[in-house]
């Protein structure tokens, strides 16, 4: 059993580390001159973070997740609504899971 003091210390440690990651990027960039090349890096970095989050998660989630992501992407292209795309992806996954035939 973890006692109260230990738990507080652990939470404080987690909070401090997480806060440092949140401010770290801006702190580092405040020492780096933002040239056009750095700006191009940051712009591609921004999209690449999301791509790097989504693709492995979708692959790990199997056919259901891949189809849900495809649906969300399609709805985004058609409607330009992020919330609509999100709901469509969730609806797609829920529907596939409700099917009597289990996907792989």
């Amino acid at each position, binding site marked *: 059993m973890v006692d109260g003091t230990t738990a507080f210390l652990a939470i404080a440690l987690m909070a401090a580390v997480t806060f440092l990651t949140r401010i770290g*990027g801006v702190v580092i960039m405040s020492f780096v001159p933002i040239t056009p090349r750095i700006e191009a890096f940051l712009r591609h970095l921004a999209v690449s973070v999301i791509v790097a989050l989504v693709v492995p*998660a979708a692959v790990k989630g199997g056919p259901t997740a891949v189809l849900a992501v495809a649906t969300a992407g399609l709805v985004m292209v058609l409607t330009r609504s992020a919330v609509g795309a999100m709901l469509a992806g969730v609806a797609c996954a829920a529907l596939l899971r409700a099917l009597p035939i289990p996907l792989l």
Partner: protein
Amino acid sequence: MNAHGAPRMARTATLTWRGIVAGAREIAPVAIFVIPFGIAFGAAAIEKGLSAALAVLMSAFVFAGASQFAALDLWSSPMPYLMLALTVFAVNARHILLGAALAPWLLHLPVAKRYAVLSVLSDPNWAQATRALQRGETDAGLVLGSGLLMWVAWILATGIGAVLGSNLGDLTRFGFDVLMISFFTAAVVGQWRGLPDLVPWLVAAAVALVGASVLPFGWHVVAGALAGGITGALRHG
């Protein structure tokens, strides 16, 4: 906005109440869907022997779901502090990149406001902020307001989960687990500027996929993002 020319980055930044309210309103549909994850965390924390108060405290001060679940795996006596710090850092290291991507914008804010905005930075409100930047918004209140609403939703949901425990069952079975990746997919598609974007995106996807099986947990996102960013800079810089 041109198809694939110079990136559009705000040359100025403001922080207004109007922006905070607008940001909160815009993220509300996402914040609602964060609740099942918060409930799941609260219930899992209780099972690990945390009190409801400690679970809520952790959600309030850490506010980073994946790392909080990871911490529960390490939650034992004696507390493995070093492992805990390293794990939380690894899972949350992507925040450094999220923040860096917003730097050309947020560096225009006074220091106190800058770090206030960053203290509630999370994946969904960051994805929303990058889209807002693309359409020329300059109000960092959008990030603060959306972050605060996500934060409140996360804390409340943790409390609900901690009190009700696993009586609610696993709410994530209704497809909520694909919610975030669907939302992020929309964010990626919304940023599409034409074919030159394809190569950096493919590099990011490939490195992240390989990284997911060879790197320690959490680092594939960092590796993929850096690879995509560097590829983009080399091609456009």
